[in-house]
């Protein structure tokens, strides 16, 4: 089993696709503009022997052929013994499989050819959370001719510590998203149980994405980079069937049951992690 962990550069609260902040100097000084950007990378931590691990990876790629498409990958090599042969060749083999390596971590300086993979990043304290790689062979329906696969249905609850990533479209969960679990979707997220963990919708810049759930007890909801933590959410909606969407740069949250709305409707502004742009 290959362990993929989402890795966050330690920049932003929330799990944003992008965060921009401008830093400007005062008028008398030359103007310089800095832009911070947070991306989500996958961390792959291969284990020795590498040949066995590659075989397992091949099987995973066969089941989810598009999983690694366009995703930055960070190689955590700290788990490999110092005497592992030909690590550089192994990394080349990964690139040959279309895996885009943006950096390495924990590489042993004595490995021949390892310099070619750049200066290792400082080891991060956080391991990140395991991601369930969607099994495209049966998790998603076969694409209609010429059409795009754009929805993923998950029949079990998403449990604490699990993370589901589906960038291509909507995710529907028949159970609950547990506290400490995370679902990341390019489109909308539909939860037929309770949403107790984190829901991140509209990942690829889709401001039209929404989050729906039968019971709102979320730790965090994010749509296209705009986020709300549990503390920001309108108290009257907690425990209710609710939806969240974006009105411009504002996150709105309302009860789904229209008889239940009234004052409960959240007009709370939502925090925008892109705010810097407007300064």
């Amino acid at each position, binding site marked *: *089993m290959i362990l993929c962990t989402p890795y966050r550069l330690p920049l932003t609260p929330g799990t944003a696709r992008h965060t921009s902040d401008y830093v400007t100097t005062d008028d008398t000084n030359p103007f310089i503009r800095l832009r911070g950007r947070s991306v989500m990378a996958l961390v792959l931590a291969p284990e020795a022997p590498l040949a066995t691990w590659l075989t397992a990876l091949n099987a995973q790629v066969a089941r989810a052929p598009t999983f690694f498409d366009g995703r930055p990958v960070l190689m955590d090599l700290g788990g490999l013994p110092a005497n592992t042969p030909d690590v550089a060749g192994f990394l080349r083999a990964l690139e040959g499989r279309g895996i885009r390596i943006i950096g390495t971590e924990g590489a042993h300086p004595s490995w021949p050819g390892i310099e070619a993979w750049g200066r290792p990043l400082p080891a991060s304290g956080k391991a990140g959370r395991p991601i*369930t790689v969607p099994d495209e062979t049966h998790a998603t329906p076969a694409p209609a001719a010429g059409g795009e696969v754009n929805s993923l249905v998950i029949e*079990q*609850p998403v*449990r*604490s*510590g*699990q993370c589901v990533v589906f960038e291509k479209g909507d995710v529907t969960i028949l*159970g*609950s998203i*547990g*506290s*400490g*679990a995370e679902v990341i979707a390019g489109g909308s997220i539909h939860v037929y*149980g*309770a949403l*107790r963990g984190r829901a991140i919708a509209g990942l690829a810049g889709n401001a039209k994405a929404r989050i729906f759930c039968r019971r709102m007890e979320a730790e965090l909801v994010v749509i296209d980079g705009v986020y709300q933590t549990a503390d920001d959410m309108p108290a009257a909606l907690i425990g209710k069937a609710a939806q969240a969407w974006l009105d411009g740069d504002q996150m709105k949250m309302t009860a789904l049951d229209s008889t239940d709305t009234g004052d409960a409707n959240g007009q709370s502004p939502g925090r925008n992690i892109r705010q810097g742009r407007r300064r």
Partner: protein
Amino acid sequence: MAKVLVVTSGKGGVGKTTSTAALGAALAQNGANVVVVDFDVGLRNLDLVMGAERRVVYDLINVVQGDAKLVQALIRDKRIENLSLLPASQTRDKDALTPEGVERVIGELKGKFDWVICDSSAGIEKGAMLAMYHADVAVVVTNPEVSSVRDSDRIIGMLDSKTAKAERGEAIEKHLLITRFDAGRAARGEMLSVDDVVEILSIPLLGIIPESEEVLRASNVGSPVTLASPAGIAARAYFDAARRLSGETVEMVVPMERKGLMSRLFGRRVA
């Protein structure tokens, strides 16, 4: 058909070892042939709760490594002859457990017993994963408090993905055992209610074991609570759970100390 049952939890100290001993003894008291296996290598505990600590010669690791035969390591309970213990080693470390060795020992145990009950260490490291890997049935021990429930949720996710059954595409049978339940504190909202825990974890409820002095007393005298005070409230809850494990339908009652019930009935004086 022998069944392999793992007693597991995310969080430590929630009552796994206590429950392994009590459920194992209860099943044996009802006539089944039972072995309890201590997978908590490095922390010998189950032998103490079973009162067998002074009879340990060989242990699980000796058998896994082929240094002892299974029959040499098994300790038969002095009180119930159809209950045995396979103890853990205090001195070796978990790395001595190999997947192949564990598989062979579990296979041998399945040939000898109706129930193979494995007491696991808390958490998700190697020892706990090996203990759950071969299980047909899992009992997820949870206290009615937020961190324990959340960690159990995580373990249930592991049971659904990291066990041999899951890898074969089969579902592992999972049961929720709520332990150290205090009806009074739950009513006052100081603990999660049974309904909350069941709703969050959404697996079938096997039993509700009350917080009870009897459990502490039993473990101090080295006896499963179902043997030490079989008529007590904790033991009865464990007996009910054991019957449910054997497939019987037993009505679920929320256990209450008798004095609590009495004070509830007679606590108010007529004005």
